[in-house]
């Protein structure tokens, strides 16, 4: 459902009429548009935005861990349209158990490393990703450091206590 406040917004309206039901929620805050998308439709939404709304650049992909709330994870995509000088934030909410979402690498190749980073640091899996490996942490690392239940100093080293 498109919230009342966003009916005025071109991109939100176009997306909602082309793919009804894909937008679950949204807000216009501090001059930035955020749309919450149903996780199973993210690729469809991204393809539409790239092809019909000229969002040729995927600026960034990241995630936020809202532990212990449920759904726990938010995958956040920042899109950018050079032609219309417009930025857009998309969000998918994922559960604590088996967080998994479709990869958007088929839409923008730049998503490859961005999604690997999210996988590495949050443990969110991306379906159909061509090369889903850890990128920043060592390959044999256990755990996902940016999760909120991961201690800041890690599990391996503890100072001052035996």
């Amino acid at each position, binding site marked *: 459902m498109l919230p009342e406040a966003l009916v005025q917004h071109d991109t939100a309206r176009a997306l909602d009429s082309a793919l009804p039901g894909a937008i679950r929620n949204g807000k216009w*805050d*501090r001059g930035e548009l955020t749309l919450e998308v149903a996780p199973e439709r993210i690729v469809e939404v991204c393809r539409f935005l790239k092809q019909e709304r000229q969002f040729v650049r995927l600026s*960034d992909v990241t995630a936020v861990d809202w532990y212990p709330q449920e759904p726990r994870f938010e995958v956040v995509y920042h899109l950018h349209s*050079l032609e219309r000088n417009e930025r857009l934030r998309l969000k998918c909410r994922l559960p604590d158990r088996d967080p998994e979402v479709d990869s958007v690498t088929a839409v*923008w190749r*730049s998503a490859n490393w961005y999604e690997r980073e999210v996988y590495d640091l949050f443990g969110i899996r991306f379906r159909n990703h061509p090369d889903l490996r850890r990128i*920043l*942490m060592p390959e044999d690392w256990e755990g996902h450091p940016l999760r909120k239940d991961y201690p800041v100093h890690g599990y391996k080293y503890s100072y001052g206590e035996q």
Partner: protein
Amino acid sequence: MSDPALPVQAPETETAPRRMVLNMGPQHPSTHGVLRLILELDGENIQKADLDIGYLHTGIEKQCETLTYQQAVTLTDRVDYLANLSNNLCYCLAVEKLLGLEIPPLAQWMRVMLTELTRISSHLVWLGTHAIDIGAMSVFLYCFREREDLLRIFEMFSGQRMMTSYFRIGGLALEPPRGWHRPVKQFLDAFPSKVDEYEDLLTNNPIWLRRTKGVGYLSLEDMLDLGVTGPMLRAAGLKWDIRKAEPYSSYEKFDFEIPTRTESDVYARYQVRVEEMRQSARIARQALEGMPSGPWVADAPHVVLPDREKMKTEMEALIYHFKIVTEGFRVPPGEVYQVIESPRGELGYYVVSDGTSRPYRVHIHGPSFGNLQATPRMIEGALVADVIAALGSMDFVLGDVDR
């Protein structure tokens, strides 16, 4: 022998020619930090390239969550250690947007001037090291001579040569020092002729031309799709600069050009960056000459530490000081993605607040991360010797990639 860290000979079969796997880095001087490239070679030609990053991962994003908003500024210096002030600025702008703070003109102009000097200093390191990679030793010495002047200017402002943390949420960390105009003016007066010197050494140098022209080509479509930003896009003909497209910190009041080239090779990137240094000096001069007067921090007692003298006479100032130092200031809930044009391209800070005095999440989108991702596309099919030139032309900083 399954470890690709060792140079191994792939098994020879009748159909596939013999290939060698070459491990370049993480200590190779031309990788400018700790980047590891795993190259699959057929003779001198690169068939496949794989990048291994993360050697410099220090968990800055995680650490930001444990500090108050103001303390986290000092971590942003360490992200891209050649463009510290750009990172300070981007983070401060993001938090200021969350807070809805109005920054006084003096602080805004000072920010513009110092980030432009940072751009020059970053480009100087790039030019010096890029040239030394390709074999021109003297340019390096020339560039570091001017960079030294810039580092002294940063030290004069902030007390630090590199990890300046001079921009704070709400304005500047310290009042601009007395007599700051003189060294800045001296530098800006001398700098254009110094750029001419670098150009004398390189622009028409036949060896430089042979090593850079037509090398490291990437098409504009590929670059946009692979997440490349900054001078590399401008060297492919795209006239896009965030300072013009989405002005921040009063950049709209400055007059400057966006240099572009269309060849999209190493030489075009060199030309774009050299011209950017001239443009940055031009912006810095405008800021120097038109520097407004007034306060250097915002009028926001709940965010900015009070004046030392006021604390001794006013109760409110003392209370605010106590609150800010012990607890930090609270930031209204919300999220912001702030982008600026760093020397390397689009730098983005995604800051999420949950209403407390510590950021709930800080995500740093470093331009080098996106740029580096295009490496395999750029060097596959090229010669090993050209890898050095191609990598140098990207101007990545591993601190910015790994965070």
